[in-house]
């Protein structure tokens, strides 16, 4: 029996990116509102309600889907803003809501039993027991797994959970710490990823020339000093160059690398995952178009003939350009 292809789920930070993703082969586009309900609440990014409605129309016309992420954690009296956003998602006819917070999940599942709920990666749910908890209480149909599991563990989760969908990250920025429990950026900047939706906010990032070096800081912390010609990356505290273990200098948390499963796509598909997610709602339209196109081609090539799957040189050249020469990693998928 021919297996259904793994779904390709791509990011969009605005309407042109959504169209680029759909036009280049995404099965699903995920996006968020332009406020703190969104874990990619970057300046100048994200969708107005009108744009989401247009995006959903565009996707549905092409037989594709749109998921809306409301994946942060309200504070104070703000939960009602998240609840209202759930109402809006339903009114707009989105195909699923991606939610992290228990209070918001409770509201959504009680108020809209027919709304398809996906558990966000921000919920830090990485075991059968935890996923079962969320499924039992909120009837979630799918979870986006945190990047802490290897392919064998994903396979076990898929098997043990039975009729339950699993979405895994395939490409893009790699959170080395489990999402939803990482306070590194909040500790340095005072802006919480969990409640404010921004890691390493641009307002806290500064660049300064020091002789021949470029010094990059986040708040009061120096994250890196680059010599001329060195590849730079968006500064996050988990990918900083630091002194550690006495006076060793290096990247003791994570190298500035991004996740790519192109080499190991057969193993990822073999894990039984239902959906392959591309990270990067904060990235440009052209990035979304390029990576979506490559992932589409890779997935299609695999299903055409799994045994002769290979990584195209062209994909590597194009992703290298899109990622500005950054190294790639398998994250935890192959060994931990």
């Amino acid at each position: 029996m021919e297996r259904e292809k793994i779904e390709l789920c791509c990011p969009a930070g605005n309407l042109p990116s959504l169209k680029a993703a759909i036009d280049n082969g995404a099965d699903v586009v995920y996006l968020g509102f332009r406020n703190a309900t969104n874990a990619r609440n970057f300046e100048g990014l994200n969708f107005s309600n009108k744009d989401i409605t247009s995006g959903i129309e565009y996707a549905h016309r092409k037989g594709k889907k749109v998921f809306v992420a409301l994946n942060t954690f309200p504070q104070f009296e703000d939960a009602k803003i998240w609840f209202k956003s759930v109402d809006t998602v339903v009114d707009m006819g989105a195909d699923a809501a991606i939610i992290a917070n228990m209070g918001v999940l409770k509201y959504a599942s009680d108020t809209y039993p027919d709304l398809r709920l996906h558990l966000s990666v921000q919920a830090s749910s990485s075991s059968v027991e935890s996923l079962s908890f969320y499924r039992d209480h909120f009837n979630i149909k799918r979870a986006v797994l945190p990047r802490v599991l290897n392919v064998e563990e994903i396979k076990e989760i898929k098997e043990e959970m039975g009729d339950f969908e699993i979405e895994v990250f395939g490409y893009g920025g790699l959170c080395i710490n489990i999402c939803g429990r990482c306070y590194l950026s909040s500790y340095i900047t005072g802006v919480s990823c969990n409640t404010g939706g921004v890691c390493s906010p641009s307002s806290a990032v500064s660049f300064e020339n020091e002789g021949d070096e470029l010094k990059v800081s986040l708040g009061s912390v120096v994250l890196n000093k680059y010599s001329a010609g060195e590849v730079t990356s968006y500064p996050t505290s988990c990918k900083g160059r630091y002194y550690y273990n006495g006076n060793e200098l290096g990247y003791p948390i994570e190298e500035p690398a991004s996740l790519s499963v192109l080499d190991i796509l057969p193993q990822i598909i073999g894990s039984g995952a239902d959906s392959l997610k591309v990270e990067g709602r904060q990235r440009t339209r052209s990035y979304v178009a390029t990576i979506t196109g490559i992932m589409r081609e890779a997935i299609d090539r695999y299903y055409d003939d799994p045994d002769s799957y290979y990584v195209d040189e062209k994909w590597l050249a194009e992703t290298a350009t899109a990622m500005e020469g950054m190294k790639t990693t398998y994250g935890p998928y192959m060994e931990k």
Partner: protein
Amino acid sequence: MVTATREMDLSLGPVRFDWSREELLDFYDEVTDYPVSTVYLGEVVCPKMAGLTISDLESVGKKLEASGKKVYISSLALVADHMDRERVRSIMALPFPVECNDAAAFQLGKGKELVAGPHITTYNIPSIEFLKDLGIDRLVFPVELSIESMKSIISNCEIATEAFAYGNLPLAFSWRCYTSRAFGLLKSNCRHDCRKFPEGMLIEDLDHKPLFKLNGTEILSAKCSNLIREVDDLRKAGVNTLRISPQQGVTKEVVNIFNERIKGEIDADEGMRKLTPLEKVGFCNGWHHGKAGLEYLENYEETAFIAE
């Protein structure tokens, strides 16, 4: 409106570092005499780090209960592999209530007395109400919450609350063992190098300012969070319990100083004077005041809400 009628008390959080079994057994022998109402035992970071076996936890827990302490077993903050899952399962079989630091513990602890630990995202009333419906009647606030946020929760929701008041702040958890990685190893072939760092491995930024501490799969703040000056704020907000997170060699003194402070035997300045020589890296209290966590606000006036 819930008001704080109980007297504020102290708890001892779980030991986060890879101390040896002997050290831990000696440490908890001493804890029987500490002026804390509550002790959290067990492994939060990595099951390979766990110095005490499951049966040790039972005997140590019973000893602490016999000395009048309320004992909770803390669960892992990241549950992913077989060893993690087995660890959570096995602590549920112990005759103590459990501090849940991951939803897996809620699922496996059905029917037990449970606390929502600091790694659960109890940022808002709807989430807490949901947990209360499951029978959870105590929570430890996430460490990044400001006093304003704690106050908003306490005044709108009846639940016993605890705040992290002293120690290196738990900032992140990974599948990767950072300590092993510093020695060119993986978590799967670890050599217990974390045993060499009973206070964590210091990370400094390129200006040599202390930033983080690596502790196996966990990242802690290099600075020690210290809310001795904020004890009155926390009391007025209605926080019931202040958590002291164990640090090597100084925990007993820290607990005693906080105890003197909550009883009003010493003021905040005196508390600071006594705590300062105990800390090597320095203090932070920024999150309490709604600022960056690593900041230390020295001469703040009592926070805004008290002037309301």
